[in-house]
């Protein structure tokens, strides 16, 4: 299932969801997490998902990653593409060092040792954790763990990246820097990105398109293109305006649910 090419693959890949429904549990306890979600993500597109807490964003990413099966509907991905998912929790391997964690996908792709070393060092520099390479997850702060998880997901070198609140535990500055890094990698590798965030400005800063999900059942209720030219700045007025618009829509949606 994994390719053994040593250079980052530059193939782009689309993602398509057709009427995807996901029900957790049965009978009276059933929770309808997704209700007929259809979505086409173009190759190389950066899509941000926003929505209230518990509306089904993580569920959606899990389905696309193939870690869960939809109750009905279909998800199409190019043959052989295994999307990389950065989970909402860091999900680091506690038995391994920071280095070791980031190295796992490289080992699985059978990269030679020297190249692995180099890639790991580079990725840790990207997330500003070079000096923590030998520490274990339990010795890191929350934000550091999240960055290790980011590095590990980036090490996958997959054309489709699914990210679940990847910068939620980071301070504004570190986040800004990682926005730039992510944008750079996205451009370089022509990645297709599905990005979940609660920070609407972050969505506006990064996305080609922002999609708003309703809560229980999760449905797409709004979708808008962000046509601000890149490079963008998170505190620019255009971004603020788009964020304000999405926030209003979100507010009315959450309000409708009586939260």
């Amino acid at each position, binding site marked *: *299932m994994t390719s053994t090419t040593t250079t980052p693959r530059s193939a782009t*890949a*689309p993602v*398509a969801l057709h009427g995807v429904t996901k029900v957790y549990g049965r009978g009276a306890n059933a929770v309808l997490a997704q209700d007929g979600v259809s*979505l*086409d*993500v*173009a*190759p190389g*597109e950066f899509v941000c998902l926003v929505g209230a807490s518990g509306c089904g964003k993580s569920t959606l990413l*899990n389905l696309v990653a*193939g*870690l*869960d*099966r939809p*109750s009905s509907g*279909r*998800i*199409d*991905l*190019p*043959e*052989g593409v295994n999307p990389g998912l950065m989970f909402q929790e860091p999900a680091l391997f506690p038995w391994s060092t920071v280095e070791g964690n980031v190295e796992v996908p490289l080992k699985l792709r059978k990269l030679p040792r020297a190249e692995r070393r180099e890639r790991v060092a580079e990725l840790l520099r990207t997330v500003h954790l070079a000096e923590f390479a030998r520490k274990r997850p339990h010795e890191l702060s929350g934000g550091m763990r999240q960055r290790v998880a980011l590095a590990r997901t980036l090490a996958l070198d997959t054309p489709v990246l699914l990210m679940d609140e990847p910068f939620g535990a980071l301070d504004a500055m570190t986040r800004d820097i990682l926005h730039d890094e992510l944008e750079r990698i996205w451009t370089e590798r022509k990645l297709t990105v599905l990005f979940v965030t609660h920070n609407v400005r972050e969505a506006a800063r990064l996305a080609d*398109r922002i999609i708003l999900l309703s809560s229980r059942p999760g449905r797409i209720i709004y*979708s808008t293109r962000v046509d601000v030219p890149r490079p963008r700045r998170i505190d620019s007025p255009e971004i603020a305006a788009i964020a304000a618009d999405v926030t209003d829509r979100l507010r009315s949606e959450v309000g409708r649910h009586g939260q």
Partner: protein
Amino acid sequence: MASDTLTTAQRSDAEISGLDALEIAGREKETSRAARVWAATWPKLAALALTITVWQATVWTGWKEQWALAPPGQVFADLADYVFSAALWDGLATTGRRAALGFAAALVIGLALGLAVARVKVLRAALGSMITALQTMPSIAWFPLAILLFGLTEQAIFFVVVLGAAPSIANGVIYGVDYVPPLLLRAGRNLGARRLNLYRYVIAPAALPAIVAGLKQGWAFAWRSLMAGELLVVIATRTSIGAQLTYARELNEAPRLMAIMIVILVLGLVVDSLFGAADKAIRRRWGVLDPAGQ
């Protein structure tokens, strides 16, 4: 919205099962009760059929004489006799009662010992390694002490059973307590749980899966110790499985020996299914029965 789908592949069941056929085999969406029972049963029956076939085939090759290797037919005939004899049921009653009582005592002692040793540093330093050491002591070594302390009584048997099973249970508890996630301990302490309350609200439930696993091992130790210990006090009015097993062997009653072995295996299966049910219930509650991971 972009809708240009290049060469796409459906994430269909077919593909997933191509990837991990074995790992997620048997995971149907809406399996009926009957189908589930069947799915749990046929592999057992297949295994049984395979065993008997190999056995019978070996007998037919004439590899060993019949008195050395009893043919399945003879064993099952004897098993049928045995099942309809009072010997089995009386033996089961005696042995079952002893096993239950002995295991219950071992459980209480093992739990208490395990919890104490796991959390009190001094006790751990003093007794920690001793527990494994005691576990390795064969039952027969305890016989003289058992007789000395309790004479030829049922208590002597219990003594041997408890010494066999309690260390194993205690080790399960210690392992469980050792691996309680520190975050949960901290959370518990912060919520105001100290000492006994910390045990009650955090350590015990967190260690429960490991404790159940330890109980399973403890049961095996208890049962084996009991099989040996039942020879310690053969109360003639009260036949027991352990005594029958040994006598079958002493009289070279191969078919009867195997019949008793089958009974022991069946009992083991029943007990394991109880533990298995407990374990499954815990795993479901904890959400460790994850279908995608499973």
